[in-house]
């Protein structure tokens, strides 16, 4: 099999991992090397599904000894298999990098023979890149669940980011769909990486020359819609991962049907709107000071299809509004639908020198379509009528409505 064919198979197999970020690394470069890791992250291209291409995202191999039901590469699946050697991976990366196609490498793999064997090969590829090619660009590797900690420790000193995919949000779902994985062998590398990152930061404070350990932090991915967990369960889990393991990102991947196993739900389209709502909520947890339990409750454990989570929160807390733009503290401004961090900064700048009216707000680029119902400018209400039913009606997310009306999960009464 020639390399073009191998790449086609192994990039096709890797594309369902949604992470593409290349940002946040602070690793110090080796002299005379090639490349660097930008703290801000760079998109080199965009796929026809609109996702950013930042890294060469491939599997080392899709030859797998596991049999996870939801996975296209499971041992029982009838797909073409390929394997890229460590030196092939290193050469591909360097040559793509020099031509400015990518920021670096995102290397993952099926479980080839056993977890340790797979991990050793991944480490060999990364070692080649860092030591033989003096590659300073971004490297993200996937930890194969079940790998011994010694190998994780070795890998952590070479790469920028590591991730262990949770895939399924509970032990029950795992044992149902991924019988060879356990919550324990997913959580224990996560916690190992976390404690090493902490130790590394402390050591660096004392000895500046201490080599970095996973300087861009760790992330994980959850598959949405393959099992029956509700949104509340998922964002509580997310919140917990951010809190206890200081994860940089939790990614959500709408389940795309890859097999017809009776254990899997029958759907004709991936639940993209649900995935979108989870990302919106994730954003609120990380940057807007929201708590999982503020966004959803046991009584209402799924996000509303009609409103984004922030608008939904606002509609259920109308007592908090309307907020006065000219005097509200930044934390309060951030809770207004249609106003984000950028808008808050502009508002804070302008109100130091000028009394803000609704015309100013429009020009600052604030989404007045949403925001106006929740604010006053110098005492004057900017919406039409501060009335629950009225605002609910006017703010229905039409785009989301269009998106859901074509899927058959929704009943006639949902709209």
């Amino acid at each position, binding site marked *: 099999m020639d390399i*073009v064919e191998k790449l086609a198979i192994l990039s096709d197999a890797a594309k369902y991992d949604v992470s593409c970020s290349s940002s946040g690394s602070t690793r110090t470069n080796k002299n005379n090397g*090639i490349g660097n890791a930008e703290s801000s992250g760079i998109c080199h291209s965009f796929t026809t599904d609109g996702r950013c291409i930042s890294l060469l995202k491939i599997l080392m191999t899709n030859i797998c000894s596991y049999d996870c039901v939801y996975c296209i590469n499971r041992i029982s699946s009838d797909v073409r298999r390929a394997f890229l050697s460590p030196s092939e991976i290193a050469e591909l990366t360097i040559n793509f990098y020099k*031509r400015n196609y990518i920021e670096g490498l995102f290397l993952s793999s099926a479980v080839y023979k056993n977890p340790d064997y797979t991990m050793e090969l991944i480490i060999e590829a990364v070692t080649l890149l860092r030591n033989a090619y003096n590659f300073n660009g971004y490297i993200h590797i996937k930890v194969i669940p079940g790998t011994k900690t010694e190998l994780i420790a070795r890998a952590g000193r070479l790469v920028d980011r590591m991730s262990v995919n949770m895939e399924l949000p509970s032990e029950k779902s795992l044992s149902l769909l991924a019988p060879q994985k356990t919550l324990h062998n997913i959580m224990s590398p996560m916690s190992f990486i976390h404690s090493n990152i902490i130790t590394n930061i402390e050591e660096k404070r004392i000895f500046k020359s201490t080599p970095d350990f996973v300087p861009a932090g760790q992330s994980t991915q959850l598959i949405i819609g393959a099992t029956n967990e509700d949104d509340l369960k998922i964002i509580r889990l997310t919140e917990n991962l951010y809190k206890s393991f200081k994860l940089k990102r939790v990614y959500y991947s709408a389940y795309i049907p890859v097999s017809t196993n009776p254990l899997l739900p029958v759907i004709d389209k991936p639940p993209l709107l649900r995935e979108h709502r989870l990302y919106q909520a994730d954003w609120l947890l990380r940057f807007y000071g929201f708590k999982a339990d503020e966004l959803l409750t046991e009584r209402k454990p799924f996000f509303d299809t009609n409103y984004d989570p922030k608008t939904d929160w606002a509609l259920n807390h109308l007592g908090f509004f309307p907020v006065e733009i000219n005097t509200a503290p930044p934390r309060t401004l951030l809770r207004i639908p249609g106003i984000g961090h950028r808008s808050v900064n502009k508002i804070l*700048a302008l109100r130091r020198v000028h009394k803000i009216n609704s015309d100013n707000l429009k020009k600052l680029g604030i989404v007045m379509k949403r925001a106006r119902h929740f604010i006053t400018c110098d005492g004057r209400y900017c919406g039409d009528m501060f009335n629950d039913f009225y605002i609910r009606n006017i703010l229905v997310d039409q785009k989301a409505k269009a998106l859901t009306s074509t899927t058959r999960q929704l009943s006639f009464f949902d709209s």
Partner: protein
Amino acid sequence: MTKVKILTYDGSFLGLFTAIYTAYYLKQEVEIFKVKDEIPGLISPTVMIETDEFKANKVFRALEQKVGKIIMDNIYFVFLSDFNYSSSLIYSYVRLCFKYGREVALHLELPEVLTFERTRNKVLGEAHRMTGFIRFKKLGEILYAQIEPDHNILELVLDHFSSRLGSEKWIIHDKKRSIALIYNGKESRFVTVENEPISNLQNLDIYESLWKKYYDSTSIKERINERYKLRSMPKRYHKNMLETE
């Protein structure tokens, strides 16, 4: 109706500041354009301003003292934009700088300040985009790239590529402006390019074929969304990018 006077200058940064100097002493409304700009409704009298380093520096220094380095940088970024209104916008902004000092950036209620900020963001945004979208082709030992950006961002990507490809030799050629940035493995220089851009670039080497293959196989067909893609990667950039040309 026209009481507006039009000043033009040679397109250099010093030229712009000379024009601003001149404008300050004219007791009438002034618009400033680069000579090559398209000037709308050519009815007003036009005066070509000769670049004068002394006058330019005088304005520049006074201004820098008044507003500091960050705002001076912003003015330069707006200068690099290719809108025909940029020079006049900078002139109005400079007047506001002398009026408000460093606080000028807070005055987002003023249309000039908003437009200034937006224009600056467009330039910096495109420069950031280009750090991703530039495609080098390997020609022997040299990496060669062609670009046609909306704004004159070539010098804004210099630091990025010289720290990243510090021991390589490379050229980034702005076809639209007939200028190129040449890096010889140690230092860089800007040159104007008279000859036709290198055109015979069709033959793909193995890594170029691999990249095209990679690009095609990494899309998820269940999630196709052309609108998303074009929003992030507008069509005008496609012709200089290997995977979409």
